[in-house]
């Protein structure tokens, strides 16, 4: 009926289609699970419920005189000058983590005023502020 070449081509196109559909499915599924949303302390105040399985990023300023250290953890307060959020963090902080400077913390929200962070983001230079932070500050 059909020549060998046609069959070969048909098989080829079929395999390509299958693999494209499969990759789209897998990619979207993984995206759903692994996307981290960025919020400001005010956004968090306005949450209707706190999902304590989902990771989020919170950006703002480190409040002056808010850093407290013990032998395992670091506590500090992120503020957008309207609302505040207490953060606890175990791990190493980037060089430019300082009181009065911009910061982005990633972790799981325990309740509307407490974040259990596992990552604090580094910045490149002293004048640089993460775009999210400057926007979050601008909006308020």
């Amino acid at each position: 009926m059909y020549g060998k070449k046609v069959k070969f081509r048909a098989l080829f196109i079929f395999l390509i289609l299958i693999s494209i559909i499969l990759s789209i499915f897998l990619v979207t599924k993984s995206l759903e699970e692994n996307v981290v949303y960025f919020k400001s302390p005010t956004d968090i105040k306005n949450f209707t419920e706190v999902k304590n399985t989902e990771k989020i990023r919170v950006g703002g300023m480190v409040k002056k005189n808010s850093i407290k250290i013990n032998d395992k953890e670091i506590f500090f307060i992120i503020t957008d000058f309207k609302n505040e959020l207490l953060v606890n963090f175990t791990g190493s902080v980037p060089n430019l983590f300082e009181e009065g400077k911009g910061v982005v913390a990633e972790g799981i929200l325990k309740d509307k005023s407490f974040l259990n962070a596992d990552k604090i983001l580094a910045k490149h230079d002293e004048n640089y502020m993460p775009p999210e932070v400057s926007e979050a500050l601008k909006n308020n």
Partner: protein
Amino acid sequence: MSNYFGNYSLYIALIASIYLIIKSYIDTNINIKNLNKNLVLITSVQTVMIIISFISLVVAFIISDFSNETVFNNSHTLKPLFYKISGSWGNHEGSLLLWLLVLSVFLYIFLLKSSSQNIKYRLLTLLFQQIIISGFLIFILLTSNPFNTVFPIPSEGLGLNPILQDPALAIHPPILYFGYVGTSIIFSTSLAAVVAGNIGDSWAKHIKSWVLVSWIFLTIGILLGSIWAYYELGWGGFWFWDPVENVSLMPWFCLTALLHTVIVLEKRNLFKEWTIILSITTFSLSMSGTFLVRSGILNSIHTFANDPSRGIFILSFLFVLVIMSVTIFFFNQKKLTSTIKNSFIISKETAILVNNWFMMFFLSVVLVGTIYPIFLEVLNGSKISVGPPFYHNLLIPFLIPFLVFMSFGPSLKWIKDKLKKFEYNLLIIFLASILISYFILINTEKKFLLSVPLIILSFYLLLVTINDFFNKKSSLSQKISHFGFSLLITSILLNGLFSNEFNANMKVGEERKFNDKVIKLNSVNVRDIDNYKSLKANFEIKNQNSFIQLSPEVRIYQQPFTITSEADIKTTLFSDNFLVFNILKDDGYYNVRYQYKPVMIWIWISTILISIGGLLSLIKKNEKKY
């Protein structure tokens, strides 16, 4: 002075570019036998002009000519000479000038090396490459001129960021750019070949060197970037799935696919369309890489100072190029004579096609992860980031079939092969790799479902590629690259599986337990050195059979005020001990991070091996010619 030289030579280069576009377009439409000598001459004039311009910038940096705005913003009299020079391409304006320089030098080399090729093809390549060059020239002159002047002349520059003063970072952008820009020649030549209708085995042979050159530079560029992140940034890893890293990885996947496809085109005269599509895609990815990094759209830790108008220019330019190439491809497609010869499912062609599928899958994953946040922000304004788990979940499971295919694919024959021939060698290798993996995995508590087959297969592939050295079937360059690649995968897996990390806040004299180790902070010494204050700590890490001392440092610079952490890393062939500390407050606590990273050095070594394979292939190719 150098400002004027630099500036005017750019204008001359632009005029040359416009002349060349017109002239080469006219020449392609009339039948001529030889390339007009003027064309080569004017291309060389243009190249010289751009070289002069680049040298003027470097000179301005060396003599700290602060009347130049770029120098004023990015240099400082106290900078060491090496970093003054590397500073000239470390910034946005200078880096574009470097792009341009490489574009025109590569074109010139192409004209010199392609004299045996069809005349129409050479003219068209010149035309397309000049379109790209003129685009960049206009872009530089309009939005990012490196020769803008400042008046009154400032007495001191602003740029002395110590984080950026690192040898790996200083040479990393040019090397990466050689790779990126090399793809422009691939792009221009494949479009030219489509129009001229000479896509085929001889063209493949000729273009292969350019693919190899770009691929080698890109590989080394990515390597240097990760070395910098590991040693200087002190994040304790070599790859973070940061958007800026991703944009260099995407063209790499594409180029790797192209490298394999070109071989099929050369040997079997197959996959013509696919080769063209890959060439166009590779260059588009390199361009958009520059666009994404320079526009500041990417929410990256590396984010550079940015200016939206620049991003829009590069984006529209890229858009024009893509539309142009798709149109050309579409209207000239018929010239690609179909040459489906006898092909069978089990053959080297199919194996390379499978390789391409995997590369395209890896590429799509990275592409989605990188641009999805931008896409979503434009769509509904929500700000998100895509973390490493996204990439790991999607890439790691597919490594299993990838490793299986890679273990037998390269040894298949062209046209038709059988899978039936059973080799005892391979069985022995397989059993050996199970045995090795058993001994490695028995001591861990982490027993991921995937880690067992992955480790077994990576060792299997490693042993197979070693075994291949004793067969004569394939070229030495391929053996080295494939061996390097399997070594890389094995090292990354072992590194990922057995790395561990300890974080704490410690005071001087304190001791902490971590697994079977004891970590002690002995002392912190404060000293004034040159332009910074140094706090050098002394840690000791003990366990039953080893004792390591590590001295990480924190440097506090005043001009500009910057704190940097210098990690201390003790490297052996088996593992790295990585320690970095930081100061949060004046309360005696130091923020400490200790990492144990097995086989770290093999990640670097294997990547170097991969590129050596490419280099060997390039050298061999050139030897044959003469």
